[in-house]
């Protein structure tokens, strides 16, 4: 009896599972009422859970912006902490709707992983951090060094390229998480730690004595980091892309979460920004207003999470607006 019932049960469950309808990400998100966002397992300033488990950071804000645009409520985001290894599989498999986890935009990832990068929310480059004690001033003095890095990142490939181009050798210890990486560095397992520069700063504050380590001047790669979605869902792709663009445009227009209510009719560009166009993306007209009101513009997010007043103390640099000498440049909303 048990066998019959179990067989029947299994096949009926399967039949049920097999007949459920596939839907676009936007509909799925609307029906479940939250955006599932893939973030890091903890990287201060970008995506990090505080002691009570609330996620915050520059990457987290992108997800919040999408939630604000689609659902009208920036808090309707659920976060899935992912290791670098898991991230693409998790996105491919549909476990998450957006991957916003300091992920570098490369051709391979765009082309053969079935993913689409929706934009860039942080221009970064790979750098090196070494302990002051070893007295190294340039990465070119690091021949034969042991290197700590996080596995499953572009870092591994850049490092190999850089060292072989300069005729140097290295030994890399590939850890699973950035936490393990910094612990290995702290213990002296390696002479240097390599990662995107922004991460180096956020990892450095995890050292017992942050001033004991320095970040070397060399930047050995281009690392445009941005949110990623699945390929083949253009509607969702557009929403994520324009949520990010809205944040950048708002900064250019001088709109902040504090002044957006009073600025609504200041200029035609602002009117266009605040007043709708959501229909063209398949979402509510108040989408851009919601993003700025609830999350803030790009500059606000930057300053609050990684800016000079935070422990990370990162200057805007490349990530400043194009009009102020950086390369942050968003297509216009019109």
């Amino acid at each position: 009896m048990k066998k019959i019932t179990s067989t029947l049960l299994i096949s009926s469950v399967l039949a049920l599972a097999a007949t459920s309808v596939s839907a676009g990400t936007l509909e799925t998100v609307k029906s479940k009422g939250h955006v599932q966002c893939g973030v890091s397992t903890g990287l201060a300033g970008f995506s990090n859970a505080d002691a009570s488990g609330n996620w915050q950071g520059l990457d987290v804000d992108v997800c919040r912006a999408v939630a604000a645009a689609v659902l009208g409520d920036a808090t309707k985001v659920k976060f899935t902490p992912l290791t670098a290894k898991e991230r693409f599989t998790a996105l491919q498999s549909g476990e998450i709707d957006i991957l916003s986890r300091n992920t570098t935009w490369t051709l391979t990832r765009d082309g053969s992983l079935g993913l689409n990068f929706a934009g860039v929310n942080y221009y970064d480059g790979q750098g090196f951090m070494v302990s002051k004690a070893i007295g190294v001033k340039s990465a070119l003095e690091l021949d034969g060094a042991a290197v700590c890095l996080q596995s499953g990142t572009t870092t591994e490939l850049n490092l190999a390229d850089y060292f072989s181009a300069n005729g140097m050798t290295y030994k890399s210890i590939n850890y699973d998480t950035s936490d393990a990486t910094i612990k290995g560095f702290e213990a002296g397992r390696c002479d240097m730690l390599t990662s995107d520069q922004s991460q180096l700063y956020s990892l450095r504050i995890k050292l017992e004595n942050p001033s004991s380590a320095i970040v070397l001047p060399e930047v050995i790669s281009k690392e445009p980091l941005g949110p990623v979605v699945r390929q083949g869902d253009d509607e969702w792709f557009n929403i994520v892309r324009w949520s990010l663009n809205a944040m950048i445009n708002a900064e250019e227009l001088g709109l902040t979460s504090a002044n957006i209510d009073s600025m609504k009719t200041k200029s035609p560009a602002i009117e266009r920004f605040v007043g709708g166009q959501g229909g063209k993306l398949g979402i509510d007209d108040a989408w851009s207003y919601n993003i700025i009101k609830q999350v803030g513009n790009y500059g606000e997010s930057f300053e609050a999470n990684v800016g000079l007043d935070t422990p990370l103390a990162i200057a805007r640099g490349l990530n400043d607006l194009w009009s102020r000498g950086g390369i942050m440049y968003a297509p216009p909303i019109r």
Partner: protein
Amino acid sequence: MPVNHKKSPSLPPPASEVGIVVWVKKNLFSTYANGVMSLAAIVLILLLLPPLLDWAFFSATWSGSNRADCNEDGACWIFIANRIDQVFYGFYPAELHWRPNLAGLLLIGLTIPLFIKSFHYKNWLGAFILIIYPFIAYFLIHGGSFGLEVVSTTKWGGLMLTLILSAVGIVASLPLGILLALGRRSKMPMFKSVCVVYIEFWRGIPLITVLFMASVMLPLFFPEGSDFDKLLRALIGITLFQSAYMAEVVRGGLQAIPKGQYEASEALGLNYPKSMGLIILPQALKLVIPGIVNTFIALFKDTTLVLIIGLFDLLAIINLALTDSEWLGFDDEGYVFAAFVFWVFCFAMSRYSIALEAKLHTGHKR
């Protein structure tokens, strides 16, 4: 001659057979080689134990609120005290801690009668705990109905998550394991081979690959849009994995039942389900309870692997605490504390399993 029928008091053993010195001589220095080993053991103990005790207790810091209060030479337990909420509950909101607490107390309260000899409804109570209680616990901890606020599974963590993972894993894998064990002993070749392949497959691969598959690849196997919770997927992986081990434990019990029992139940005209359900399984399951407890211990330890897929079990919470920049360099305290918690649970359960074995192993011992 008057006969004295009174018992004369027993004489104490001869002086050459009692006393600490004699005991030491007999047990530690009976031969030359033994003496050398004893001395080596004593040196080892003297080298290890005093510094360890000093570190863990005498020089340790037990109260205080921040790093500055820590004593350099000893363990600094305030590091743990500072995070104790997370260690127990993960990110579960502090004002709602009463819910998992209540679920835990309820379970303890329900289990106590099972150990009282004169309690008669043990089977019913057992069934209640295995079948109804999980739903109660789920509604209490997860919420979502009866006016309880939802606490999403991403906030579950710490010891609570470790216990949930191992308890659900073991309870859910038991029925599947029984079916597989029966299937493996089935006379129908298809059932048998399917069960053998299933069992050998899951027993042959590491849990970490199973968890990885469950956490990131499972949704790929189902139609687009089917959405599972991450914790649920980990649980599915653990249950499928564990059921193979459970099947082997149950099979051991089935094999230990004398053939006469099978023949007798057939002679009584019982069909397969009845003969299994009424005669064989009750005996076999009784026999394998210690085995099940041992499987539970193994699973309890294995749940630490979920940290690799980003769930925050006890060990993951400790790891997280160790990267707090305010509290760097307390690896020893963190790992020793986690080890102690796991050890207490596992050791207690293994003692219980040994006691059970002694109690249950009467009827079949030759």
